Each structure stands twice: as structure tokens, then as C-alpha cells.
């Protein structure tokens, strides 16, 4: 039995967190455009999230035994990788902060963030409406 908020509000909130983190990283990159020796940092979470939600090619895995590993998505354990696993490398021309690339990443990220805020707002207003209609 699912609770009131355990549908996709958790997921949306988590992805909003991750997108905020990406925005912060991009802002940091932009701030360090002129810093010598600075390399652009990225956070990637899409592929991991897809496999955590069983949306990738392998498809849904069902739990048929209580001894199986839980494959369901949990918010607490999930975090994007990239900040900690950053490997320094030196390739001339590729390492410096590319302003256009950063701006493109930031624009896309902001748009997806806005769309997700819309999603979560609509979720809450829908829940509210159902509750109000039921209370009549």
C-alpha cells in the first residue's frame, strides 16, 4: 500500500535536487573561466537513475523471492556521480572551461528544472483537489 506522497513526488524532488546541484556546478565552472589549471566539473545522473528505475534496456526486474536484492528505487541511497569520481587528466584544449558549452548545459538544465517544478506543482494541486472533492 502506497502512502500519500510515495508516488512520484519523491522522485521529482530528488531530480530537482540533482538539477540544482548541476546548476551550482555550472555556476562554479563559469566563475572559474579564467582560473589557470581549472577543469570543468560535471555531474551525471541520468543513466544511473534510468537503471535504478528499471527504465533502461534491461527492463523491469520483479522481486519473486524475499531473499532477492531490492531493485526498487529508493530516494535515500541515490546520488549522482561525478563529483567524487572526478579523475584529473591533462589534454590540451579540452580541459579549459568552454563558455558556450557551459551556457548550453545551464540553459537546458534550467528548462528541465522549470518543467519539473511545473510537474510537482500540478501533482500537489491535483492531490489537494481530490481531497477537497472527497470532503464535500
Amino acid at each position, binding site marked *: 500500500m502506497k502512502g500519500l506522497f510515495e*508516488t*512520484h513526488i519523491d*522522485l*521529482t524532488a530528488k*531530480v530537482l535536487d540533482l538539477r540544482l546541484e548541476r546548476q551550482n556546478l555550472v555556476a562554479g565552472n563559469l566563475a572559474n573561466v579564467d582560473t589557470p589549471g581549472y577543469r570543468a566539473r560535471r555531474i551525471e*545522473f*541520468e543513466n544511473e*537513475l*534510468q537503471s535504478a*528505475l528499471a*527504465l533502461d534496456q534491461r527492463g523491469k526486474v520483479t522481486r519473486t523471492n524475499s531473499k532477492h536484492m531490492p531493485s526498487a528505487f529508493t530516494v535515500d541511497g541515490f546520488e549522482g556521480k561525478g563529483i567524487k569520481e572526478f579523475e584529473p587528466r591533462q589534454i590540451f584544449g579540452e580541459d579549459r572551461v568552454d563558455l558556450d558549452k557551459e551556457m548550453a548545459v545551464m540553459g537546458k538544465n534550467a528548462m*528541465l528544472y522549470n*518543467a*519539473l517544478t*511545473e*510537474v510537482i506543482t*500540478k501533482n500537489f494541486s*491535483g492531490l489537494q*483537489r*481530490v481531497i477537497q*472533492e*472527497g470532503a*464535500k
Partner: protein
Amino acid sequence: MIKNVAMQAYRNALQDATQLSQNIRSRTEKKAPAEGFGNMLTESLSKVNAMDEQKSAMIEEFASGKTQNVHELMISMQKASVAMQMTSAVRGKVIQAYQELMRMPF
């Protein structure tokens, strides 16, 4: 002789009674429809549920970055929301009608 007449009368009465009951049964069977209001209600409820599930799946796909299709997401969310509103309105009307019937003096 008298016995015979009595038996005959009894038999006739029995036949009449069975005919009558058969008539009544056929009439009531005709009146009861095969697919009724409840069937329609359950069907539309399952449709609304399917819309909601589709909406959830689309939100998951969008959030995880698998699809970046905002307009389809918004359309399916609106569809699910309108269907839910309609369902709750119908539910309210049905309950109102039931209460109206219960208040009726017999």
C-alpha cells in the same frame, strides 16, 4: 369419482401456479439488463486508472532524462487531471442521488 375431480382441480391449480411463476420469472429476467450501470462505472474507473498510470510512467521517464518531451508530458498530466476531476464529480452526483433516494418516503 369425487377424489378424481378434486385431484383434477388441484392439478389445474398447480399448473396455473407454475405458469404464473414462469411468466413472472421471464418478465423479471427480461427487465434485468445484462450490462448495467455498474459495469460502465467500473470500466470508466479502470480507464481513469490507466491514464493515471501512464502519467506516472511519463513523469518517471521525463525526470530520469530518458525522454525530453515536455508537451506530451503536460498533455498526459492534464488528461489524467481532468479525468480525475470528472470521476470525483460523477462520484459526488451518484452519492447525492443515493441520499435523495434514501430520503424518499415509501
